[in-house]
């Protein structure tokens, strides 16, 4: 066993992301085929966080990717999720709709690549957002147009994620004082805020909708939306309770977390009492503080720790200006020692075997970046992009007004 302090293997991560950028993703990614713009964002933005986007790619390449993203913009506003829905020679807008998450990811990827958004149909997107909003304040993911007596409809679940994307697009595309966009009808932000407040659970975490189970990813989306709407400070959520719930997501790393399900069920069903006891054992710091050496985060009460929740919880705390209250070092060791993969990237779970995936690899970097890991650019918690990318947007002429 090595005693060297854990560190971010920057060259390996770079290699991992350049491979994602330049070669085909394996066919295991087929179930994410309709989210190609989202995957594109993760790839470009990971290289940005690593500080390598502008050194590892040429301006010409970046312009080509920018053009590709624009080729997925739709004339009535918004971006499709993937070229997979495009009919090329026989366009049919009804089944090739703009997608809310994809529109957000397309725009942040464009800014990250250095585009000035001058080709984005800002007005059309802002006009599309109110159409996606439901009466209860929540948003859908896309709209199915009316067709031959068949009514149009808002599609997708009632889900906190979509409120976040709507708030982020509103913030990004209206500009500082809504400059030039004043005439475009806004969506009902008050209703969306009420929906968020109602979604705070009895245990004070926030759920996808009222009375559903509190979930760290949904909590991040809710706080991100409030933050981007500029109302986080004054919104009537129970802040102390939420803080306690968020910090309770951090769990000391036990032996059981580092095992495959088969292995621990075998031990649990066996009769070796010593092995059973060892399942719950925690490796402690050797400074006598009794604090665990590694501690990642779960997304819901009594669930196992998972890489992405280091970001969802960490960024939520950052927005509440309470990031310093979590055990930053134990989280860092969890990510670097338990889920960082030898080939670069991060795995979802701290178990033996398995491969890194794009989502967890990005969110692992983002989580470390919140804690100011050396070698990574700093992150804006609400937008989940580097601070310099956010500043590139806010210094665009039309944005700052």
């Amino acid at each position, binding site marked *: 066993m090595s005693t060297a302090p854990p560190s971010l293997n920057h060259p390996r991560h770079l290699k991992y992301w350049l491979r994602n950028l330049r070669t085909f*993703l*394996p*066919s295991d*990614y*087929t*179930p*994410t*085929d*309709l989210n*190609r713009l989202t*995957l*594109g964002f993760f790839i*470009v933005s990971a290289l940005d966080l690593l500080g390598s986007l502008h050194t590892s790619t040429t301006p010409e390449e970046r312009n*080509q*990717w920018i*053009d*590709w993203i624009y*080729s997925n913009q739709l004339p009535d506003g918004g971006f499709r999720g993937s070229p*997979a*829905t*495009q*009919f*090329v020679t*026989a*366009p*049919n807008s009804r*089944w*090739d*709709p703009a*997608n809310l998450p994809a529109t957000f990811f397309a725009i942040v*990827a464009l800014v990250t690549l250095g585009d000035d958004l001058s080709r984005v149909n800002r007005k059309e997107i802002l006009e599309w957002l109110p159409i996606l909003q439901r009466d209860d304040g929540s948003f859908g*993911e*896309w709209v199915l147009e009316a*067709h031959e007596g*068949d009514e149009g409809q808002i*599609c*997708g*679940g009632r889900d906190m994620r979509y409120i976040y994307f709507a708030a982020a697009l509103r913030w990004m595309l209206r500009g500082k004082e809504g400059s030039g966009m004043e005439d475009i009808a806004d969506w009902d932000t008050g209703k969306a805020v009420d929906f968020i407040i109602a979604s705070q659970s*009895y*245990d004070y975490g926030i759920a*996808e909708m009222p*009375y*559903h189970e509190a979930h760290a990813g949904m909590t991040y989306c809710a706080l991100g939306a409030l933050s981007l709407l500029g109302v986080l400070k004054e919104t009537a959520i129970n802040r102390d309770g939420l*803080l*306690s719930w968020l910090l*309770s997501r951090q*769990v000391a790393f036990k032996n059981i977390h580092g095992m495959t399900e088969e292995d621990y069920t075998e031990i649990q069903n066996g009769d070796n009492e010593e092995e059973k006891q060892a399942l719950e054992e925690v490796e402690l710091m050797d400074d006598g*503080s*009794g*604090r*665990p050496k590694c501690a990642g985060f779960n997304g*819901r*009460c*009594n*669930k196992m720790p998972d890489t992405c929740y280091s970001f969802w919880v960490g960024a939520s705390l950052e927005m509440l200006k309470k990031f*310093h*209250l*979590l*055990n930053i070092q*134990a989280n860092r060791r969890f990510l670097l020692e338990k889920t960082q993969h030898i080939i670069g990237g991060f795995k979802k779970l701290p178990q033996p075997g398995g491969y890194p995936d794009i989502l967890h690899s990005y969110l692992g970097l983002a989580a470390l970046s919140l804690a100011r890991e050396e070698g990574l650019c700093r992150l804006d918690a609400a937008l989940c992009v580097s601070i310099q990318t956010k500043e590139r947007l806010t210094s665009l002429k039309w944005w700052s007004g």
Partner: protein
Amino acid sequence: MYSQDPDWDDVVPLPQDDGDHPLAQINYSEEYAEAMAYLRALMAKDELSERALKITEHVIDLNPAHYTVWLYRVKCLAALEADLKKELQFLNMKALKHEKNYQIWHHRQLVVNRLGDPTGEQEFIKEMFEKDSKNYHVWSYRQWLVKRFDLWEKGEIEYLNTLLEDDVRNNSAWNHRFFIVFSRGTPVPEDVIEREINFVEESVFLAPQNPSPWNYLRGLMNRCNIPSDRVKKLCQHYAPLDNPARIKSSHALDLLAEIMAMEENGKESAKAFDLLATTFDPVRAPFWNYRKASIAA
């Protein structure tokens, strides 16, 4: 292979155009690329037919998160006046195969809503929970089902009792319990409140260090009038401040610290926070110190 199939003779497939410099290109299997090309050809002309229904099934199998194909399937079912009971059987198979997928449950909601009959749904959910009793999408669907068909008193609490008997740490089940008891918008009768407090007490006895019932207790306290003495006693039982060696629950200690602070007993409250920071929950030491400082202020 659609290209060899006489039923598809008249269809000109629409292959995907990824452009010259795409991002996140996926190494599609030939099967997927071909099925998608034929699906696109039908969707482009809004063809609602048996073969359209069939190809949606094929694509869903390969990519259940394809968001437009599900709705296209709904339109096919409606146009063909298909048997929705059969559609449910199809969905059962898909749900068991693609456990993490959410579109399936959204689609199921549309189908069952149109059927107007929840028969068999609770049983199927039970089957899903045998695989993963914390599946978020399935619990969300169950809430919809209860509201849509007024199933509040149709075995929900009894089922939750068995689930929690199997695993008292199943927080999703605790959450559903709160939904069943408190979300109907009618006043909760005294005997139900009493039943719930008893249930918390029994559950805490089984596993004092399980956060779920303690959180549930806080929920009860916020929603109805529970004598604070009773809660305090329960906390003190699992977290006797005068005998720290016998403390069995950091959650009891946390709640006790809060009650003590409310009673303006700053000294006892500070003691509880200290014990949390040093001994019973050191992973959150900075937070407990922060809480201690905020009651002193």
